[in-house]
């Protein structure tokens, strides 16, 4: 079975945000770009499925400027077989633009499973997976935290408010992965060496009319300075008093 893993290159979660001079984008200076953390679970799950079936191919796909090939190379080092780079130099395309480009690329592949992280930790949209599935006309479950394959049916769970939902899904299908689904592997030295010889195919994507317009990117208003109400257990009566009388939250 051929599986596709869609990955995104994002700023590391330790990033301190600075807004660029245009007032609309993230200042890239000093920002370390990494594989989106939720995508690690997607890559890992695809590799596990391939290993359990003992056959098949895992294709990593990413949309973006030339730099995303670094991230694709990391995914190849984890164990993906080949990669497809959908080259789009426009900054921060909206989710539907990404989903359409991915759908166009994936339609030509006979993919039994398509994997994505549940959201990218830069825009936190959580949109591309369900959009992609809808464009492809495939079943989709987002935020899966367990996955079990029985023939051509997958049994999965996803977290919902106050509990979990169990679903049954006929393949081919699209899944987005939540933290906790698995423990992603690190690339081994052997994997890193092997990745150098694997293919990254580059395909140009045309920027279509955007579906959203970003007017501004702003930092949140700084929180007003707080105060230390005291030290040790002796501070508890004063803490309770301010929570009741000042903050009125107890």
């Amino acid at each position: 079975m051929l599986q596709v893993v869609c990955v995104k290159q994002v700023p590391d979660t330790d990033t301190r945000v600075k807004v660029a001079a245009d007032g609309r984008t993230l200042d890239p200076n000093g920002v370390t770009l990494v594989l989106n953390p939720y995508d690690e679970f997607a890559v890992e799950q695809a590799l596990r499925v391939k290993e359990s079936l003992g056959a098949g191919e895992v294709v990593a796909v990413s949309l973006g400027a030339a730099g995303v090939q670094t991230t694709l190379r990391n995914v190849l080092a984890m164990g993906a077989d080949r990669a497809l780079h959908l080259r789009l130099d426009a900054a921060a395309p909206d989710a539907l633009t990404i989903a359409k480009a991915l759908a166009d690329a994936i339609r030509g592949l006979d993919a039994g499973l398509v994997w994505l992280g549940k959201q990218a930790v830069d825009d936190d949209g959580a949109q591309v997976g369900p959009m992609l599935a809808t464009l492809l006309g495939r079943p989709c479950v987002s935020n899966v935290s367990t996955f079990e394959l029985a023939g051509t049916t997958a049994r999965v769970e996803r977290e919902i408010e106050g509990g979990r939902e169990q679903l049954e899904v006929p393949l081919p299908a699209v899944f987005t992965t939540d933290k906790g689904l698995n423990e992603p592997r690190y690339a081994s030295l052997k994997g890193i060496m092997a990745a150098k010889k694997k293919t990254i195919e580059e395909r140009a994507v045309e920027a279509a009319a955007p579906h959203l317009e970003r007017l501004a990117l702003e930092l949140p208003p700084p929180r007003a300075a707080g105060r230390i109400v005291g030290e040790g257990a002796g501070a508890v009566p004063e803490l309770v008093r301010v929570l009741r009388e000042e903050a009125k939250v107890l």
Partner: protein
Amino acid sequence: MSILVYVEMRDGAVRPVTREVLGEAKRLAATLGGPVTAVACATGDAGLAALGEAGADAVLLARHDAFARHDAAGHAVAVAEAARSTGAKVVLFGASSTGKDLAPRVAALLGVGLAADCTALDASGGRLVATRPVMAGKAYERLAFPMSPALVTLRPKVFAPAAPEAGRTAAVQPLAFTWDAAAPRAVVTGTTAQTGGRPDLTEAEIVVSGGRGLKGPEHFALVEALADAMGATVGASRAVVDAGWRSHGEQVGQTGKTVSPKLYVAIGISGAIQHLAGMSSSRCIVAINKDPEAPIFKVADYGVVGDLFEVVPALTDAVKRMH
């Protein structure tokens, strides 16, 4: 300007986030004009006319036997059809686990953009502008919608429900929609409730979170005791989730949940930047930490410097005595 609201239901009951979304729809309608139409996907009419009290002017009922359980694929087709047939300019959903999964499907069916997990909407300039956090709240973006309808999911617990208008009812009309339930799709086979009965992190009024300062998973009992005394939900830092002390569902921060409760209590959490991102929009933040230099004190409204093993039990006792 017609506004459409998706009615989120579970076990036949309307979920609270829907009242928040209807409240915001009603406020938008005051600027943009109405009507506010609610669209519910269900097997039958379970008192949907009462949504009038929460702000709906009319209700469309998409009836299907498959809707006995949540069905994202079917609901997406129905909501897209409701958007077309009402000529909606704005379609609103709650940014719950259900809404965040459903809205992108509707956006793809309609071929329009979606602003997800928004914390403010502004229509004062005659056009809709949505504000939403990115990078778990490290920054906010403001988005405009070049296409129609504008699709938006609203973060739970941020928008207030409208003051209920007792006795106001909304006319319930059937929605005609074509959906092939025989096409391959994901089918919900069951749901299980979390044990403990605490509200979900993203919907909790009070969150009590613990971090590495607790020294071991067994000491989370202190956090749970305080949470129980306060009627709060338990959260955790990434460090303790990655260490396997707590489940990922409890993680607050950039690779966990973003929360904005009225009270957030951080116990033994130093305040890594990715944690701060996930909780800095809480209304009131309390930090208990032995290190006076811990970054958490920079965002806390009230801090107690001290040994959490003394402070937390004392706080739990004090809160219990209040009741």
